[in-house]
């Protein structure tokens, strides 16, 4: 993703401001505002978050019969689950994001350890601590969204990602891809109609949202 150079800088300034001024204004709650999930649409912020919070998940998984690869898997799953919860308004704005992601990753790992695949291999006395994610419903919903996205061809992904995720305007995308803006508008429309057709077809009906 191409980002304005000031994007990461602004995040760091905001973070620094919170760290410096936060304790004075909000006492113990200041560190809860270090990250917003949607800041993570910026790969620079996402990378910073990853570097800061992955090591604790890795340590936890390694201490509980897992491998570094397991740690990476559950951390990535926890990140996308957190992002989805935030988009659906299920995440409190003041949530401590690092702690939240850690709890989801931990729960996912505990679920995996207890799964039948592991029963004959290891014995670990574990108990799920809380229900930060939404279990089966959340998994089904993630699979559903992944399934829809997977139906798009590379060209459509390229255009739709830039428009809906990176929030670039159509003129910019048209210029980047060497297409005139009217053609780009039509291509985007056709790509979305492919999804509409898929969404309405048998076999891909939506898991119900938990609003």
């Amino acid at each position, binding site marked *: 993703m191409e980002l304005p150079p000031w994007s990461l800088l602004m995040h760091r300034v905001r973070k620094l401001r919170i760290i410096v001024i936060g304790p004075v204004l909000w006492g113990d709650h200041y560190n809860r505002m270090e990250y917003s999930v949607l800041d993570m649409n910026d790969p620079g912020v996402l990378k910073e978050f990853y570097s800061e919070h992955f090591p604790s998940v890795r340590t936890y998984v390694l201490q509980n019969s897992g491998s570094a690869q397991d740690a990476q898997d559950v951390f990535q799953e926890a990140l996308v689950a957190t992002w989805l919860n935030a988009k659906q308004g299920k995440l409190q704005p003041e949530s401590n994001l690092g702690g939240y992601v850690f709890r989801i990753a931990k729960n996912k790992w505990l679920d995996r350890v207890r799964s039948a695949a592991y029963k*004959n291999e290891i014995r670990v006395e574990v108990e799920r601590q809380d229900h930060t994610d939404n279990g089966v419903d959340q998994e089904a919903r993630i699979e559903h969204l992944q399934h829809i996205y997977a139906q798009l061809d590379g060209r459509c992904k390229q255009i739709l990602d830039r428009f809906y995720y990176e929030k670039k305007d159509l003129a910019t995308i048209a210029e980047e891809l060497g297409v005139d803006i009217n053609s780009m508008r039509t291509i985007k429309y056709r790509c979305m109609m492919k999804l509409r057709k898929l969404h309405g077809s048998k076999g891909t009906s939506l898991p119900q949202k938990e609003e």
Partner: protein
Amino acid sequence: MDQGKFEQIESYLMKNMAPDEKAEFERQMANDAELRNEVERQRENMLAVEFGAFSGSVTRVAKQYQQENPSIGPTRSKGHYWAIAAGFAALLAVTIWAVTGSNRSESLMAEYYQPDLGLPVVMGVIDDPVFADAMVDYKVGEYDEAIGKWSTISQDVQNDTLSYYLASAYLANGQPIKAIPLFKQTLDQPGSAFEHQAAWYLLLSRVSLEQWRAAKAIYIDQNSPYSQQARELRAKLD
């Protein structure tokens, strides 16, 4: 849906409408159920795009992190050349997957998947007439009908027979995403008579979605009548 209507809904969802335009659009929605459905459908598709893009971004950042921190990455570094070789192997695997992934899933399903035959529908075997009626639908391949009837029962009754056959109907109907949580629910019931079947069809549901890693992680008991098939199938996933 024409392009103009699509762009109007998009403008609403992206909060690009002027206040009076937005108010007028919301008035239309209040009186038009079809428009409301279209808005929800488009909202979901836009979310799927954003979600897919974010997932891709997470994967890229994870790889970058791993490259920059080889000592704590998922593969213990045994040297630069091994890392390069692993990179080429991964690239080759991804390329093969991209070319053959869908065909592979379809051919494996064609080879291994046979819908569960269902329960005998005779007096005394099934007491609930609605359940029995749905079982007849299921056995003649009317899966939508069976799903509709079993779903109404499932709001009141939770048992492994119902969850298993509802899951089986979804899978037979080409809806593995809906089948998966129900097969898991069946497996979560201690001592279920459908334990072996549920595990096997859960594995097949994962295969049909091309979720190879998740498919391989599903435990099939060695006493399961499907253990031999599962071993064969797993070997083909490697």
